[in-house]
């Protein structure tokens, strides 16, 4: 672990809220991702956890430029992806691929499985980044189907002929087609049944070892994150509230939100469940569009203090590799106010 493969610096993604029918005026912004920084090292699996609306999907989508970024830098081997266009962007995009959450809507129902998996290879060959001819592409498709444990003779079938688990395998084969270095997996198993989830998780772990892939793995299921990830970042309302090695987060959670989140996960064991004490958070997640002074978690925090209402805690290291943004641990550090003037 020396130089990071990918560095995200002060990333902000804001979506405008528009009002009016003919003449639309921007009346505010949804701060989907607000000032996020982290590093990703080669060969690791970084888990991103948080509840719906915390910005985890938007953050990951902005890495492959599926959404527009308001501010910040995304450095791939030192090159800022946000400044690239056209051919140059394509060259790097080849190395970063995505696996989507819903295996039903992420495959085109009118294309055969073979065409779906071949498409990235064809596009990149046409644009001169790869140089495969038709036969070579078909060979690759067969090989990819075998890699995800489907049979190559299935390639003339259509997505509707497959079950959810099999479709997700097809999506994974498509993501692997360009031999990427980084895979962004956005809740890849949450739409699947439990017994099928385990199959896909085991497949992803296998692939990671065989192809020495790096993963950003989004999940709201923390048991899954703990199982698969080397490091974890916990997000709340567009902010990272805690970041640490997986064992540290689960053994020694610092941020009150992380603690509540961990205590809320049901454990499939009646003896453990009977003895557990839950930290019940009051209230609901507030709107990310609200201008807010102080800590974003203030409204729901069981350990809030006077200072939290006035100031925003900085995201600081508490021990090696373990960072959090909370005044319980860093009394003096006052972070910059999250408003940026746009």
């Amino acid at each position, binding site marked *: 672990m020396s130089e990071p493969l990918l560095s995200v610096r002060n990333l902000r993604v804001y979506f405008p809220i528009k009002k009016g029918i003919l003449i639309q005026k921007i009346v505010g912004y949804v701060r989907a991702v607000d000032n996020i920084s982290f590093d990703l090292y080669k060969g690791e699996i970084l888990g991103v956890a948080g509840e719906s609306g915390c910005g985890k999907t938007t953050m990951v989508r902005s890495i492959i430029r599926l959404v527009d970024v308001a501010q910040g830098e995304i450095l791939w081997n030192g090159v800022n992806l946000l400044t690239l266009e056209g051919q140059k962007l394509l060259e790097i995009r080849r190395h970063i691929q995505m696996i989507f959450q819903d295996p039903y809507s992420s495959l085109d129902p009118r294309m055969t499985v073979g065409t779906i998996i071949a498409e990235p290879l064809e596009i990149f060959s046409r644009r001169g980044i790869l140089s495969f001819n038709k036969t070579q592409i078909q060979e690759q498709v067969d090989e990819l189907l075998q890699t995800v444990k489907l049979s190559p003779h299935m390639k003339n079938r259509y997505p509707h002929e497959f079950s959810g688990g099999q479709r997700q395998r097809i999506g994974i084969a498509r993501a692997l087609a360009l031999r990427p270095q980084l895979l962004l997996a956005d809740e890849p198993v949450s739409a699947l049944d439990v017994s099928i*989830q385990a*199959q896909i998780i085991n497949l992803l772990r296998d692939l990671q070892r065989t192809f020495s892939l790096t993963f950003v793995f989004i999940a*709201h299921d923390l048991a899954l994150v703990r199982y698969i990830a080397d490091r974890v970042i916990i997000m709340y309302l567009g902010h990272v509230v805690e970041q640490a090695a997986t064992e540290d987060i689960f053994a020694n959670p610092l941020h009150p939100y992380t603690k509540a989140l961990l205590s809320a996960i049901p*454990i499939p*064991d009646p*003896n453990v469940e*009977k003895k557990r004490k839950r930290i*019940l958070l009051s209230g*609901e*997640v507030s709107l990310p569009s609200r201008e807010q002074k102080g800590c974003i978690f203030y409204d729901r925090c069981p350990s809030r203090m006077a200072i939290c209402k006035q100031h925003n805690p900085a995201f600081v290291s508490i021990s090696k590799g373990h960072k959090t943004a909370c005044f319980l641990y860093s009394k003096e550090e006052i972070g910059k106010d999250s408003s940026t003037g746009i």
Partner: protein
Amino acid sequence: MKTILDIQKLSVSFRTDDGLLQAVNNISFTLNQGEVLGIVGESGSGKTVTGMSIMRLLQQSEGSSIKGKIVFEGTDLLKLSEKNMQNIRGNKIAMIFQDPMTSLNPFLRVSTQIMEVLVRHKHMSKRKAHQEAVRLLKMVSIPQPERRVDNYPHQFSGGMRQRIVIAMAISCKPHILIADEPTTALDVTIQAQVLDIIKELKDKINTAVILITHDLGVVAGLCDRVHVMYAGRMMEKGTVHQIFSDPKHPYTQGLLHSLPRIDQNKDELLSSIPGQAPNLITLSGGCPFFPRCTERMDICLNTYPGSRAPSQNREVQCWKYEKQETNNV
């Protein structure tokens, strides 16, 4: 303990364009007063159809059929006229549905929707029903219930909507509450709030709960007994401790092992169940788990095992175990 619901040999099938779909296949179980019974299974296992049959919410149309008996306090619900059923549905047996976004009517105020139940079943005056609606919202911890009661569903968040649905379900103090995946659409911290409310209310109004879910963690925390369904069959029954610490059916065992747990050593490989759930239309007479089972035998292919008892008070439908003594089916 007193049995308040006795389901005997329930089978539900639907006619589809591809053939007859056997959604629920000859299941029997009982529900005791005041207990929480978990029905666990993956999608397509028939758990929701079971809940809907108890509520008589399935259309009996040509080609589709519901067979068996659903005995509630001495009467077979399947034999009741629709009019008599309406006196029970929402009154003595109530249901919470999975998706709080679609189970409330978006055009009606929350107060109207809760009052409707009270006026219909408890014959309350509108004014009284309105007061009662406020009290119910308070019970499920909706802040400022006096003001919020006249809001529309879209003015509430997902977790609050589910609590409103719960308030509506418990408004007549039902004897049975059927909760069909009540927290699946919610985030974990909100899920914890909602489960807490169900647990608390169950004791307050002394109702029996049937909790239908795919989440084994939720079951472990809330249920007294658990039944496991697969492809329309009731594979295994037991107390929550029996099912989790000593699962007998190969499917239950596989299901428990395929879950990652936050209190488990992470170097253990997840053991997955190979293959996928069967097509309910082309199912043969044998065990539906046969193609995926690691312990299958020749007999499993064509003959269904029926109830067998590996030990006292256990019921498993698997050829691995000895035949059960006949008196209870």
